[in-house]
């Protein structure tokens, strides 16, 4: 029994192709049932987001199963297979496990560490559960993927630093002020970006907002929205000393804030630090303001630079996450193999026992003159022979399982002896027994 996945993502396919193979939510149920009905597949699950479409499945034969998934993807969306060629990836066994864990932990996302993908996979899993297309293996598999994602999130700093410009501004403010609770913000102008950034600040604890605009009515409207206070544009420099954070995005063609004004404000506020965010292009704030002590000025490019630095930091954290995932893959594959080791041994014993009984019957039928004692001796001899023969291989298989290397033996035994192997009913116990 194996796990495999076929799919495409933002890394392998352009959006023009991704939108063609996406599964609309209202048609997902039907697609799941069609997919589950395919012969080589035991359990199926469909992940469909704007950045990736992936079909997960379990079945006895990974090669045949993957081919079925591939054909289904093309067939269902009525695309020629050639159109998907080169864009699809397929993983099986440990590689499929790694892929799912990396996707769930947001290591494969466009923005590493973004949290949405985990929710999307959880929804995909819920759908599959609802339509009963997942069973023992995929249930356990996805629960494991969720817990790995959680572990990555808590044990690494992968989602630690802001990757949007407006949130980067909030984080910078925290670096400067420690906490931004109780700090006061001045909004100059009323651009959309400015409003968004202001909202981020308010949501993160800033509780006093001043708004100014050349059109006083607009300032008043915006002030109402933030339950703040509107000030006349000509008067705003007089309020500069009261505010800790200044967000500016006017349409002015020359600077509206000059170093002298800021210096004056600093004197009045006894050098308590100030943070200026200039979102306007052309810029509103004279860059020389940044040279003043205890003043930090960031324009759009600077904020973008912070975001880029943060992304680099996330990539570093991702290396730690990969280690966690490698460790968890080992754990999960040994569980998966454990699922088959005990039933394989049982099937082998059953098969040999059947052969022994048949041979005994034949022998006793031919040799009617044997007395009870002789019959028993022959029976004991055959039983001992079977036990001695099977003892070695059984031991070897259990040892291999402990080292995560049972799969080739299980496959070989099943093929050599033509065994029909079901799955253990209680896989957890089969793991713990050894």
């Amino acid at each position: 029994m194996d796990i495999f996945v076929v799919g495409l993502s933002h890394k392998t396919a352009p959006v023009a192709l991704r939108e063609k193979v996406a599964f609309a939510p209202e048609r997902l149920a039907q697609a799941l049932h069609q997919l589950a009905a395919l012969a080589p597949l035991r359990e199926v699950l469909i992940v469909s987001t704007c950045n990736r479409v992936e079909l997960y499945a379990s079945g006895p034969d990974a090669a045949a199963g993957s081919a079925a998934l591939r054909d289904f993807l093309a067939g269902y969306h009525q695309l020629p297979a050639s159109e998907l060629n080169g864009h699809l990836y397929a993983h099986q066994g440990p590689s499929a496990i790694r892929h799912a864990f990396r996707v769930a932990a947001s290591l494969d996302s466009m923005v590493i560490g973004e949290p949405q993908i985990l929710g999307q996979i959880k929804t995909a899993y819920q759908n599959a559960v609802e339509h009963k297309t997942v069973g023992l293996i995929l249930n356990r598999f996805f629960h494991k993927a969720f817990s790995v994602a959680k572990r990555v999130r808590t044990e690494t700093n992968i989602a630690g630093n802001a990757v949007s410009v407006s949130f980067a501004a909030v984080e910078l403010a925290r670096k400067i002020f420690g906490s931004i609770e109780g700090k006061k913000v001045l909004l100059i102008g009323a651009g959309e970006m400015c409003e968004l950034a202001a909202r981020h600040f308010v949501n993160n604890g800033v509780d006093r907002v001043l708004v100014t605009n050349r059109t006083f009515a607009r300032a008043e409207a915006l002030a109402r929205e933030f339950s703040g206070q509107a000030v006349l544009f000509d008067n705003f420099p007089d309020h500069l000393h009261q505010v800790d954070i200044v967000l500016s995005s006017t349409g002015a063609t020359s600077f509206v804030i000059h170093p002298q004004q800021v210096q004056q404000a600093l004197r009045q506020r006894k050098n308590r630090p100030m943070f200026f965010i200039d979102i306007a292009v052309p810029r509103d704030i004279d860059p020389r303001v940044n040279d003043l002590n205890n003043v930090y000025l960031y324009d759009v490019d600077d904020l973008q630079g912070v975001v880029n630095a943060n992304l680099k930091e996330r990539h570093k954290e991702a290396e730690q996450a990969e280690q966690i995932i490698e460790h968890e893959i080992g754990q999960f594959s040994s569980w998966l193999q454990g699922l088959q080791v005990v039933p394989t041994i049982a099937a082998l014993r059953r098969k040999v026992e059947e052969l022994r009984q048949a041979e005994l019957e034949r022998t006793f039928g031919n040799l009617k003159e044997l007395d009870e004692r002789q019959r028993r001796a022959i029976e004991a001899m055959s039983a001992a022979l079977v036990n001695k023969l099977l003892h070695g291989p059984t031991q070897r298989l259990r040892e291999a399982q402990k080292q995560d290397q049972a799969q080739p033996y299980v496959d070989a035994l099943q093929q050599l002896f033509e065994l029909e192997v079901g799955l253990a009913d209680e896989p957890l116990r089969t793991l713990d027994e050894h």
Partner: protein
Amino acid sequence: MNILLYKVALLLYLVATLLALVSAVRNRPERSSWSMTALLLAFTVHSLTLLVRYLEAGYTPVTNLHESLSFFAWTLAGVFTLVNWRLRMDVLAVTTCTLILVLMLFGSLIPMQTQPLNPALDSFWLPIHVGLAFLGNAVFTVAFVAGIFYLVQERMLKSKKFSALYYRLPSLETLDSINYRCLTFGFPLMTMGIISGAVWAESAWGTYWSWDPKEAWALITWFLYAALLHGRLTVGWRGRRAAIFAIIGFLFVLFTFLGVNLLLPGLHSYSSMAG
């Protein structure tokens, strides 16, 4: 016995430094309790070292260079443990632990044996005067470490170039408030240290102040910190300027402690290399 304990404490400080380093590099603040526990353990063993030495020698062990270094390291470990207990600043922990380690190593490379007490030091003022002075020194050392990282981080925020260190440092506000707290505790400690010394001098030598090098340098250092405290309280000196003051102040503290002992002979020459 106390020398063996000293070596155990030295080893534990090394462990605390390494644990803090691992925690800082991996940026897992929740793991920093390991290094803090190691530091607390090292501090405890070090306390025991001083107690045993006190019992073995029969006087407060602050009378020669080895004892002074050990005592300085001990006060620094104690003060930093207090400051960092809630804040958990791994980078500062690495730096401070390294400083402690250097003091301890230096102290282990010079004669460590106890000697008969110089009669001039046989007074109940000895633990009071030296205790206050070193406690003040330790507090100023923490301010120095916070000051360095304030400047480093301020530079990064101004130039908008962020290294890995940036993601591991507490906010500027935290670093600056450490500077302020240390000043408000360190300055009174230092003041009382100087006054207690003057009172002791009066009772021992009949004069409050005799301008020996240590007294002179301590006074200069005191004026420096007095200026910073005044500036902070009245005109709002803070941030970068306060950090620079804390760094310069520490250099004076260090010179008053070590430089004077090793270079300038005077009334305080008990704790030179010769012991």
